[in-house]
């Protein structure tokens, strides 16, 4: 590589700084707003750092809004969805990644096409299904509905991971008389651990962020998840949205996601690339 002149370097770093500020600013603004008092929030000209930062809004999110319950709902729904997808998705991925059989391509395409379904196209039918199973306004309604996007995605990511694992170990296990189920459980699953983490994280984030189904299949806070709560936060009157609380809640749900992203950066990117390239 040839050396850049200091001027080009300066321009380059300015450009980088610009991109960085563009990406981060809305999140920074949410933090600043969440630390302001109501008076300061509705003050012009706008202040770029609160004069008297305070945590009160973070307390009020839990005392004046049922946000604790929403967090619990989201955690349980996203957790169950992830576990269930990984559990049944890993056996399917094993079949698709390791076995040759007639109809494999059809299954492959069927799963791929489900992952491209617009959620809205099943909304009416899903609503009827959930009502007739008696699941309306429960965690299980959302767990069931979320399978439509987490399961195909999980199968994808895991299939591409299994293909990259060398076959020798499994063949040795077969020679020793292990059944396919044992091979999957004892030999393959430990090797798949990185894939399971990636697929699980992505499934969790998708389920945690989902809005349309959560908005439609819940009616009150017994099962309402965080995104719906944040969209529907209301204040004293229709025209007075509790912006400081909304921003505090936004920061609360975003921080764990950013921490996850920080820890698993590399894996997320490779998983997303695999998922996007293959479905």
């Amino acid at each position, binding site marked *: 590589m040839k050396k850049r002149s200091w001027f080009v370097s300066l321009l380059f*770093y300015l450009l*980088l700084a610009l991109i960085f500020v563009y*990406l*981060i600013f*809305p*999140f920074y*603004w*949410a933090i600043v*707003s969440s630390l302001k008092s109501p008076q300061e929030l*509705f003050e*012009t000209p*706008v202040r770029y750092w609160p004069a008297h930062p305070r945590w009160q809004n973070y307390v009020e999110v839990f005392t004046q809004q049922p946000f604790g319950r929403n967090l619990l709902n989201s955690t349980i729904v996203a957790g169950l969805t992830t576990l269930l997808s990984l559990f*049944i998705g890993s*056996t*399917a991925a094993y079949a698709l990644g390791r*076995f*040759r*059989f*007639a109809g*494999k391509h059809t299954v492959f395409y*069927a799963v791929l*096409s489900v992952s*491209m*379904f617009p959620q*809205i*196209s*099943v*909304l*009416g*039918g899903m*609503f*009827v*299904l959930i*009502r007739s199973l008696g699941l309306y306004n429960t965690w299980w309604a959302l767990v*069931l509905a979320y*399978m439509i996007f987490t*399961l*195909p995605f999980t199968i994808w990511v895991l299939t591409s991971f299994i293909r990259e694992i060398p076959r020798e170990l499994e063949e040795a296990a077969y020679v020793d008389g292990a059944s396919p189920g044992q091979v*999957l459980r004892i030999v393959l699953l430990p090797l798949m651990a990185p894939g399971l983490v990636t697929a699980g994280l992505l499934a969790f984030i998708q389920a*945690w*962020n989902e*809005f*349309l189904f959560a908005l*439609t299949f819940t009616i009150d806070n017994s099962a309402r998840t965080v*995104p*719906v709560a*944040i*969209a529907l936060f209301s204040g004293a009157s229709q025209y007075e949205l509790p*912006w400081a609380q909304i921003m505090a809640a*936004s920061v609360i*749900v*975003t921080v764990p*996601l950013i921490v*996850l*992203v920080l820890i698993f*950066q590399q894996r997320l*990117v490779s998983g997303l*690339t695999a998922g*996007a390239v293959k*479905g």
Partner: protein
Amino acid sequence: MERVVKHKSKLAARRTRTAWFFLLPSLLVLLLVAAYPLWRTFQLSFYQVSILEFPLKPSWVGLDNYRYLLADPYWWVSLKNTGVFTVISVALETVLGLGIAMVVNARFVGRGMMRTAMLVPWAIPTVVSAQMWRWMYNDVYGVVNDLLMRAHLIAHPLAWLSDPHLALPAIIAVDVWKTTPFMALLLLAGLQSIPHELYEASTVDGASGWQQFWKITLPLLKPALLVALIFRTLDALRVFDVIYVMTGTNPTTMSMSVYARQQLVDFGALGYGSAVSMGIFLIIALFATAYLVSLRVELD
């Protein structure tokens, strides 16, 4: 010899049975949560039926819902809004994403931090980012107006989300902010697979950076670019969250998905809403088929 063949085919049959056994749970779940609801929605689109009464009391209306759909001005408005949203946001995301990917692909101090920053907008739930921006767009206390006025780009505050000319562009800007970095990450993976020698050799041959971009980068990036483009288009066509949170069911910005849900849930028209859903399904299925054909997914 014959016995070996027979043994082999028996083994193959057993492997096939095992494979289907392993696939069974996933297939059953997908039948329940994908195939059945889709079929049910299709069926309901031929009835007039209210969502409020359970058990349902459907009455057959044949193709009436579809006839009504074709004459429904709000359907056409939502289709137009979705089209504008898709074309402009995907185009901007691709161009900006490619730009950012090329910048980040260079070597520099703090590259890791930059890549993390790129994942932040993607990781933030769409609803949350929509609320953040809604506050930033606030006509009196919003930071967007403040910044633009300080920079003397506008003379007086604008009502970003209630002005019919500004609302859709403002929403597109939010989608671009949220999705461009993701696009850039996808393209970055493509850029990194281009062998370095190509650039070195062409530099020796005296090619300019501009020529390198058009003759090397773009042609070799084409597969990754195509995948990312179609992937994003499918996503943009079903846009719901950002529009619903920022402007609700306002016809000036309403997308197809917002309209379908309004019919299904807010108006309780399960039959007509299902017909709208099937319209969206058809449109997206066309694009998805194009996707499958262009990708020619390879197994094994």
